[in-house]
């Protein structure tokens, strides 16, 4: 038996080296959150690196590729206009591959190996939740461009999409103003719909709106016979839809097939934007409602310019949507923050962020320095025959972001 003799010393070595490694750490006993690591961002040259982290492969690539496109458009425009503080943006693109752990891993790489000044991207709640500890531990900056479920505020993240009081709460207000007395909630089985529905239920209760049912489908689920049967039997005044992605196609096809219409039971969706309308099919969606903060049809000089530039770069058939606009805006907001701070330093940017404004395609947006969200105007839209969404109601003024819904009495106890 000559081989065990070779193996045993190696195992001994393994254990020795292993324990030697253990010995070294005893001095670094935890408790405090550790010291913030020093930044390696290089601003000495005539360019500065930033990171774009979107899913370019996997199930979320469908949506996140569009955000990546509009980020690239913004970077191109900024570079053409002389860059940020005279430095050209040099872009490092990474693929989040639709997996939370990959987002965390690639965020670490962008911060530690590529030494980027800021990272832009993320879509799903799970990708943001996975990246949050990475950005906090490394004291770096993430700009997150998608509407989300709120109940979060990190000094290392800027949220340029809507939080709940800028999208969901106004949508309920709108339905109530239309005389809707009861709702049915349909959503995909993950964080955003469940949290959104928790908020909707609390708000509906305070407004005397009855919730006739609440159903969740697994992500990617495509058989909605049963759920639509339940919706149909409940006879609510309207449906609040937080389904994600492809499930919407199956849901609306089945909804139409059992004879339910936008006139008798309208569906308000918060995850269907211009980009998704084509995939679901206009004939299945015509007349249904959506709640966002931006539509391609907004008639403002900023938006006309944005849409024109986007179509020129990516093709006339492409459409622009809320998350794309929020991503485009996020890069300009970062630029404004850096210029106000006079530095790329994270602490300086954080300090300068409050009150920074940008004339965005959706209208003028303003950063809230306390919770790092953005004041936005809420828009309820109706899906038209042209596949675009047309505003039917807008909030009178931009709504201040309130991720923890502290300013709402009915929301007491929602976020402990």
């Amino acid at each position, binding site marked *: 038996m000559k081989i065990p003799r070779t193996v045993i010393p190696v195992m001994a070595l393994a254990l020795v080296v292993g324990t030697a490694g253990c010995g070294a750490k005893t001095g670094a006993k935890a408790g405090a959150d550790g010291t913030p690591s020093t930044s390696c961002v290089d601003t000495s040259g005539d360019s500065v690196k930033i990171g774009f982290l979107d899913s370019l492969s996997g199930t979320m690539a469908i949506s996140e590729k569009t955000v990546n496109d509009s980020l690239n458009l913004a970077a191109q425009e900024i570079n053409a206009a002389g860059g940020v503080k005279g430095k050209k943006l040099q872009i490092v693109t990474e693929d989040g591959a639709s997996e939370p752990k990959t987002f965390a891993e690639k965020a670490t790489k962008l911060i530690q190996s590529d030494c980027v000044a800021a990272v832009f991207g993320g879509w799903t709640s799970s990708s943001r939740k996975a990246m949050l500890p990475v950005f906090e531990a490394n004291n770096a900056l993430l700009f997150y461009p998608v509407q989300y479920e709120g109940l979060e505020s990190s000094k290392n993240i800027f949220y340029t999409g809507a939080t709940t009081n800028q999208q969901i709460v106004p949508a309920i207000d709108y339905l109530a103003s239309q005389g809707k007395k009861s709702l049915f909630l349909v959503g995909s089985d993950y964080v955003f719909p469940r949290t959104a529905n928790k908020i909707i239920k609390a708000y509906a209760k305070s407004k005397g709106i009855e919730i006739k049912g609440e159903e969740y489908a697994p992500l990617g689920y495509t058989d909605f016979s*049963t759920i639509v049967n*339940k919706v149909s039997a409940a006879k609510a005044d309207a449906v609040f839809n937080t389904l994600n992605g492809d499930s919407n196609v199956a849901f609306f096809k089945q909804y139409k*097939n059992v004879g339910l219409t936008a006139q008798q039971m309208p569906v308000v969706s918060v995850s269907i934007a211009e980009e998704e309308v084509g995939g679901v099919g206009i004939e299945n969606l015509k007349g249904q409602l959506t709640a966002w903060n931006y539509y391609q049809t907004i008639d403002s000089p900023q938006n006309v310019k944005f849409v024109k530039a986007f179509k020129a770069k990516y093709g006339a058939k492409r459409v622009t949507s809320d998350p794309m606009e929020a991503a485009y805006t996020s890069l300009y907001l970062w630029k404004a923050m850096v210029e106000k701070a006079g530095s790329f330093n994270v602490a300086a940017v954080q300090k300068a962020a409050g009150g920074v404004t940008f004339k965005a395609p959706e209208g003028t947006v303003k950063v809230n320095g306390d919770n790092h969200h953005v004041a936005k105007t809420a828009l309820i839209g109706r899906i038209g025959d042209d596949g675009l969404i047309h505003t039917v109601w807008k909030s009178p003024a931009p709504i201040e972001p309130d991720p923890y819904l502290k300013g709402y009495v009915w929301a007491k106890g929602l976020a402990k």
Partner: protein
Amino acid sequence: MSGVAGQLFAGLSLGSILLLAALGLSLTFGQMGVINMAHGEFVMAGAFTAYVVQQVISDAGVSLLLSIPLGFVVGGLLGVLLEATLIRRMYHRPMDTLLVTFGVSLILQQVARDVFGAPSVAVAAPAWLSGSLRLGTVELPVGRLFILGLAAVCVAALAVCMRYTVLGRRLRATVQNRDLAETLGISTRRSDRTTFFIGSGLAGVAGVALTLVGSTSPTLGTGYIVDAFLVVVAGGIGQIKGTVLAAFGLGLLQATLEYSTTASIAKVLVFIAVVAFLQVRPNGIYAVRSRSLA
């Protein structure tokens, strides 16, 4: 009462979709023992066939009716291509076909992404398939009735073909005793290829039908592949009637559980039910007895 009847129809309808997805597998997996993970991507190919046909022929009704045979041919040709290039070498290693065909499915998905672009595409349903029939208090969506009918036609056609035609006799002979079939002058190579063509073609038909239900996207097939395999396993290998019973059984079970619990829980329970069922009948509903020593 309308709830029960509505759910009964929902279960049958889900069963018919499972059946369409699993019917082809009951041939390639059940008869030939090939674990074809790319079956889901053949379904996807069928769905994209319907999309492409609709781009050419704008009339939704004509294009749908035309897509069904075309989907069969597209799925079948993909299957034959796969059989001729890879699976032919691997009949003696059935477990390994699983991994090889998984690789094929990854590639086919990426091809679809690169060809048809990222977002899912819309296939319009013809006017005569939208809306619903009213039966008492129950709304029966016409589209779902059509799929139910299509599944029935496919099963009947397959059964007739296997039982009464020369081709079917040859295919069955090859599966039952390859050596003896060969001595009788049957080309078992051709039989294998034909079986694979029919099985994969049925996947293409399933894909065309699925455009009436859900979205047409590159990942369409992955949603059905695990369920389809479970149907074949629960039904018993090599038996069409087992596959039919299992498909409707699982469809009804899912619909019933989903009505009383949630869709997620129902799905978990259905999976566990199949595992438990195989405790009682390890070879599925209908088992082919064999004396082999393998």
